[in-house]
């Protein structure tokens, strides 16, 4: 295992290759793409949450000058597609099942004309009984959102019924004996809100269909391979005739996965045989996006008087709205972490993904574990309080250890939670503050656990004629600096200066397959693939060099773009020279291939519920929040958020800081400000005025603590950090609020009015 002192590139200061363009406003995002004679599209979304489409009349729209095409469900392929369950179509056909479902689309000479045309399309709806609450949707007699649910193809065994499109259950040990061994049993319910990813760049896609029958789509996406696959499926095209090119991404956070608007714009391009561009407005992002679902979680936990946890049952219910999309996967993942980072040998988690006529939800950074963690970490404090035990002590007492097996049946690896707790408590000054902060002020803690590594990545490396190195991967840099991280890994492994390495943009015609830029997996999965590819290229390089330099290959190594004799470093040959020989004299151009799938098979038992892929490792974190509460108004001010995250090894340290600080502020939004208000299936606050994102004036002091305990299975020991920073704050803040003013709020966000009501109730209860 290479010690950090021997690393030349990984962990060192470096400048991202993309920022020079970005600070000049020259990076090409989705809406910046432009082609000659390009048409502009607008989509007509359903205004009704559940209705039969009686009639669509687009005659007036088609007659408008400048309109080239109006399409509806009748013009689209009838087949269904989807992420885990194929329940989606490009347009609604006979029925709409959520407000914001695509009903028709227009392509016109300008966006203004397209919008006017769209407004001329007449749709007659006949309302049908609708259901807006997942608990009501689970009851017998509820309106059924997908009557043909059983006919849909699923990537998981068919445990679906009524409006429940996924039921999954994981069991470990015996709940009965676990509760039997407990001195107390506590059951608490938690609710989290629909939250929008609010990527500042709205979705934008441009499509062109050439006369050879090939579709090309330039799009704002985190998932090129998946978008390509879904387009192929939705349009009935082989993947050799589907090309997806990632434009610079202005934020995704889980909203820009698989395909969302791409099939629509592709169809318009097919019909018109022109380039067509669709840019979504901010209001449409709220009304017709894939916001993060709301969840209801009931935790029933058994504990001994001394704080030892003996049993836990979790009921985890997700409202996925009209279509299952990624929400289904969040349920599958979240239940594997029902125990949190705590040893609870008797545990069971039941996950439900439930259709309603609410807007079509998707996923966000954290993928269900954000919510599960809010519930687990809130309840840990509640249990501690009820038993009269310190919240740190109860956690330490029950922390998982290396090799502990969790509900997914996976043994935990790279368990560093003790270290993140140490770091966060130290940096926050916990022991000097807890119990000593004065009225209205409090401090709270929360631990996080998450999987590290998900499915596969591949990469290839090409040695160029001049000795520089090109890296091809399928992973989109969503703005985190992944391009730099992968270049650093390649440079380190190959032994070239960082400045000699370039990572290409992602284009499905050229780039190898990658799952997606999600799940904190980029550094680990794509990084490992790149490292394997680099190692492969290096091996070929050394074999050639051995031949050229007439030395045994064991005596050779690489450094700074040269292959050299380890016994006499003056004897060396440049990569450029070797490249020339390989290209024109013998062996052929030097390339390296890397294909990485961390763990084979499935973690959760196949044949029951949801087959969660296993993770190669795990990451841990600890957050400490310091708050002051204005008891007269209910406003919670977070003074300081300390976030300790175990990253194995920080490949690009400034990037790690960026992830921690940025994620912490999203976590702050989740905890205090952000909520999509949905009533009768309609979004009441579809704008940034009333969907409240934290501004620069709202952010607390954020103290990032980078904990580096290398995991040998990661590239140079590195693990990812994309999601955990968002997962920690909510419970830490809720726990701090309880410490400050003695009110426990179990549903997010902690708005001023909600806290005020809780404070009043507490006062009334005491009088």
């Amino acid at each position, binding site marked *: 295992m290479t010690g950090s002192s021997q690393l030349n590139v990984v962990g060192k200061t470096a*400048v*991202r290759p*993309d*920022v*020079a*363009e*970005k*600070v*000049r*406003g*020259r*990076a*090409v*995002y989705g*809406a*910046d793409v432009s082609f000659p004679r390009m048409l502009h599209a607008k989509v007509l979304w359903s205004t009704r949450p559940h209705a039969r489409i009686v009639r669509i009349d687009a005659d007036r729209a088609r007659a408008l000058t400048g309109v080239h095409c109006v399409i509806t469900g009748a013009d689209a392929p009838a087949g269904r597609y989807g992420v885990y369950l194929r329940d989606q179509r490009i347009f609604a056909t006979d029925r709409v099942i959520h407000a914001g479902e695509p009903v028709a689309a227009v392509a016109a000479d300008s966006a203004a004309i397209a919008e006017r045309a769209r407004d001329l399309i007449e749709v007659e709806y006949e309302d049908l009984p609708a259901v807006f609450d997942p608990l009501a949707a689970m009851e017998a007699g509820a309106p059924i959102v997908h009557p043909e649910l059983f006919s849909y193809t699923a990537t998981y065994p068919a445990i679906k019924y009524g409006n429940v499109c996924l039921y999954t259950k994981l069991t470990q040990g015996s709940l009965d004996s676990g509760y039997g061994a407990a001195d107390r049993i506590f059951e608490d319910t938690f609710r989290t809100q629909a939250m929008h*990813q*609010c*990527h*500042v*760049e*709205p979705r934008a896609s441009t499509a062109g269909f050439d006369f050879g029958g090939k579709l090309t789509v330039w799009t704002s996406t985190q998932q090129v391979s998946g978008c390509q696959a879904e387009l192929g499926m939705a349009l009935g095209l082989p993947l050799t005739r589907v090309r997806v090119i990632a434009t*610079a*991404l*202005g*934020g995704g*956070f889980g909203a820009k996965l698989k395909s969302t608007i791409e099939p629509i714009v592709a169809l318009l391009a097919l019909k018109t045989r022109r380039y067509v561009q669709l*840019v979504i*407005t*901010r209001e449409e992002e709220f009304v017709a996006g894939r916001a993060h679902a709301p969840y209801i979680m009931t935790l029933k936990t058994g504990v001994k008087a001394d704080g030892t946890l003996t049993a836990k049952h979790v009921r985890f219910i997700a409202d996925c709205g009209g279509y299952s999309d990624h929400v289904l996967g969040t349920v599958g993942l979240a239940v594997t972490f029902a125990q949190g980072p705590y040893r609870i040998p008797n545990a069971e988690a039941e996950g439900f993904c439930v259709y309603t006529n609410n807007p079509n939800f998707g996923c966000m950074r954290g993928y269900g574990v954000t919510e599960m963690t809010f519930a687990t970490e809130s309840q840990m404090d509640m249990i501690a309080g009820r038993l009269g035990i310190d919240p740190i002590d109860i956690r330490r007492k029950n922390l998982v250890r290396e090799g502990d097996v969790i509900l997914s049946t996976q043994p935990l690896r790279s368990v560093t939670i003790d270290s993140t707790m140490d770091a966060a408590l130290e940096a926050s000054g916990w022991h000097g503050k807890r119990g000593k902060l004065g009225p209205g002020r409090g401090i709270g803690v929360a631990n996080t656990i998450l999987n590290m590594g998900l499915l596969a990545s591949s990469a290839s490396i090409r040695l160029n004629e001049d000795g520089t190195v090109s890296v091809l991967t399928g992973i989109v840099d*969503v*703005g*985190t*600096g992944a391009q730099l991280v992968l270049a650093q890994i390649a440079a380190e492994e190959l032994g070239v200066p960082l400045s000699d390495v370039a990572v290409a943009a992602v284009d499905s015609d050229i780039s190898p397959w990658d799952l997606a830029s999600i799940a904190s997996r980029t550094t680990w999965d794509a990084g490992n693939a790149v490292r394997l590819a680099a190692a492969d290229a290096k091996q070929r390089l050394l074999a050639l060099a051995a031949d050229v330099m007439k030395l045994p290959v064991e005596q050779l190594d690489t450094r700074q773009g040269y292959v050299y004799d380890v016994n006499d470093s003056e004897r060396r040959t440049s990569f450029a020279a070797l490249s020339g020989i390989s290209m024109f004299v013998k062996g052929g151009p030097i390339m390296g291939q890397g294909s990485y799938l961390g763990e084979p098979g499935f973690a959760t038992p196949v044949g029951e519920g949801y087959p969660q892929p296993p993770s190669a490792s795990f990451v841990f974190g600890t957050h400490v929040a310091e708050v002051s509460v204005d008891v007269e108004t209910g406003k919670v001010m977070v003074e300081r958020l300390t976030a300790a995250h175990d990253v194995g090894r920080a490949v690009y340290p*400034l*990037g790690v*800081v*960026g992830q921690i*600080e*940025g*994620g*912490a*502020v*999203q976590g702050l939004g989740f905890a205090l400000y952000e909520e999509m208000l949905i009533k009768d299936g309609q979004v009441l606050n579809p*704008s*940034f*005025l009333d969907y409240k*994102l934290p*501004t*620069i*004036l709202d*952010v607390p002091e*954020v103290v990032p603590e980078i904990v580096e305990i290398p995991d040998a299975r990661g590239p140079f020991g590195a693990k990812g950090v994309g999601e955990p920073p968002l997962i920690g704050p909510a419970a830490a803040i809720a726990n701090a609020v309880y410490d400050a003013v003695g009110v426990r709020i179990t549903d997010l966000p902690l708005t001023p009015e909600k806290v005020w009501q809780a404070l009043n109730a507490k006062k009334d209860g005491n009088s």
Partner: protein
Amino acid sequence: MSLTIELSVNGLIWPVTVEADELLVDVLRERLGLRGTKKGCGTGDCGACTVLLDGRAVNSCLILAVAAEGLAITTIEGLAEGDDIHPIQQAYIDQGAVQCGFCTPGMIMATKGLLDENPQPTRDEIRTALAGNICRCTGYWRIVAAVESLAGSEVRP
């Protein structure tokens, strides 16, 4: 109603024919090809479309192009010529203040508006000046560090 107007953008005069209801942000992007200015919300709530109008930061999504005639418009493209880089742009790079980069042009223009008026702002003044610019990636502190590094003040580590 179509009007032929002259827009002064980054020191150059651009004659352009626009509809009376066309937004400045759209005219900059679509007619003048200056796509550095971004559209994030269209309601003046995110600041991604920030340009300077006679030196003052404004949301170009809430300004009609015709209403901007004759005023000096500065966009992100106007900050640096050729190989040059403006100190604000360099500071954003140095301090890691750029992640996805979509909010960056607007953020930089708001920064320029601030520093041109107040070369040594306090941290509170920096945050007030940038409160109309939403960033979803960075959590803002790297941006504060970038501006403080230009303000001749103590830079947040």
